[in-house]
């Protein structure tokens, strides 16, 4: 089921974190796709829900570390939207879909890689348990 995960990331720290990740030689499996926005603060519930509805299995919102957002707290606002969508998906009994908020600094290539792969494995585990 986890064959399509969209990573929505900001043009600042998160973009650099992804670049650092690939510089260090960490690659991602084909399930992942990336899309850049100026700030994760411009992500709202509609964007998350409609991507899931239109076929993505998961949306990962990747932003700068909590105190590093260039626009003060766009990343924190994104986190609240992600939390609301999580609750909604769970209460509505939606299966096979997820959203997650991830914070990354430009020097955290390895940790970012592990976190992202973790979401893939979680999805596969869910499939196997059915």
């Amino acid at each position, binding site marked *: 089921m986890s064959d399509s995960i969209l990573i929505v990331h900001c043009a600042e720290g998160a973009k650099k974190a992804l670049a650092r990740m690939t510089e260090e030689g960490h690659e*991602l499996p084909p399930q992942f796709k990336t899309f850049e926005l*100026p700030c994760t603060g411009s992500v709202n519930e509609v*964007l998350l829900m409609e991507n899931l509805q*239109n076929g993505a299995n998961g949306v990962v919102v990747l932003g700068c570390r909590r105190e590093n957002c260039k*626009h*003060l707290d766009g990343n924190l606002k994104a986190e609240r939207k992600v939390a609301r969508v999580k609750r909604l998906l769970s209460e509505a009994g939606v299966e096979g879909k997820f959203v997650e908020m991830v914070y990354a600094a430009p020097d955290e290539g390895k940790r970012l890689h592990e976190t992202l792969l973790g979401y893939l494995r979680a999805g596969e585990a869910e499939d196997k348990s059915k």
Partner: protein
Amino acid sequence: MSDSIVAVLCDQQCSSKGPLQKTSLTKRLSQSSTIGKLILLDKACQDPEKKLKKVTGRKVLFGGCPYLEESGFYSLAAESLGLDPGEMLVTDVKSSILDLYDNSETIEENLIGRLESLGRLLADSAPLKDRPVKLKRNVLIFGSGYSGLKTALELSGEKLSVDLVETEEPPLAPGCLAAGLGSPGLIEELTERVRTSEHVAVFPQTQMGPIRSVEKGFTVSFGRGEPREYGAVIFAPERTEAPAEQIGAWNLTRLYEWIGERRPIKGRIVFVLDRSSETPPEVTQDILTAAKVIKERSHAEIWILLKHIRVALPGLQELYDSTREMGVIFVKYRNLRLHNEFGDFQIAGEDPQSGAPFRIDNPDRVIIPGTSGLSASAASAAETLGLRLPGGRYTQPYSLWRLANESNHPGVLVCGSARGNMDAEGVAADAASVVQTLRARMVPEGITPVEHIASVDADRCVFCLTCVRVCPYHAMEKNIEERVAQPVTTACQGCGICAAECPAEAIDMRNLSRESVLAAMQAL
């Protein structure tokens, strides 16, 4: 399609995953309804002018690597092809595609997806012909202490008008006190020069109204006067020192007042450092300078209790050595107990190495430096300006160790002691650095709005004020006559938070509308 997108890719020969295969890519793109033509440049970074001659088109999507960006290839492209914002998009296909996936099939698929996706965004984009806005050549400086005065004088040489807001804070931050003592009347002299300068006007903080973002910068009213306009605002208050935590102990500010007034300090004087946190070197400098002055005037018995000595300032090691030579007693401690009977102290501790106990009975004066931070009035002014104050000390956004003069609010600069512990030389250097940054902002041609600024659909706006409240830059204004929210185009930084929060979906970012973004995500 009339507005057909031309995709221009560097063939990425230097990458282990390259070069890109023209035939296969062209074949896949032939089905595309967005991309009209594909041009592959062989090693784009080499001889760029020549390579760019191959490129023509009204809307161009470039795909390259970080080096291409750094080497100015895209600025050159924009210029030579005469492309405005909205007619060109750039994407790094190396870091985020070639290096991200391991097999060539996935790479090619994602490359096509990326081109289709961004092609879709570009197809929906309108060319922007913004006229640069010339900022008002006035600057507002908040703070009349050493930092503010120094900055005002630096700026008055720049053919700008400066308004200085006088605050009721002590004029020197802890860490600058040594400067005041070294040259008595320093503050008075600077104040005199500022007051007599024809470029500087002074206003009291009590009369200062709220700050607003406008097209040409900012406005502030003083008292009942007309709002005054500024191209930039400089936040330069002094940090103030908290009172010493113990009854009867002095903090440095009190000590320096006493010394400045030449009142006698005699007997047994004990300085206690490093109580709640490490003492910064600038504060250590203040303490050693004070100790020397006291010793010179009254030959008092002076003790300095500390955990570590930090001498990371020019001249501080020599100051430390000369202070020891004068007979000031330095004692390192652990487990310090300060027993305080309403100002009568008994001090006891242990040597950190040997564990041997020591005691100091009945000192005549105990001095404990207080932690420093912004005063309440400065903190509230920072809030009015929309400045982030992480940790209560540094007013800058990017990370806690990067002390830039540029705050998170474009056009609001931070100078001097508000940025951290600084001695007098540091403040002077900071003032000079602010002038540099200011020059870059107040360029004669003016500044151009960011491409993706907010755009409000007046028909959908319900005037709920959500965007006005949520904007990090105070860049959304209430237009009372039209009953809609309106962005201040030179203050808006295109973060998109207002668009995300608007309950009526009345706000879009220019050339990044919610519809285009969703369609672009689907096209991946």
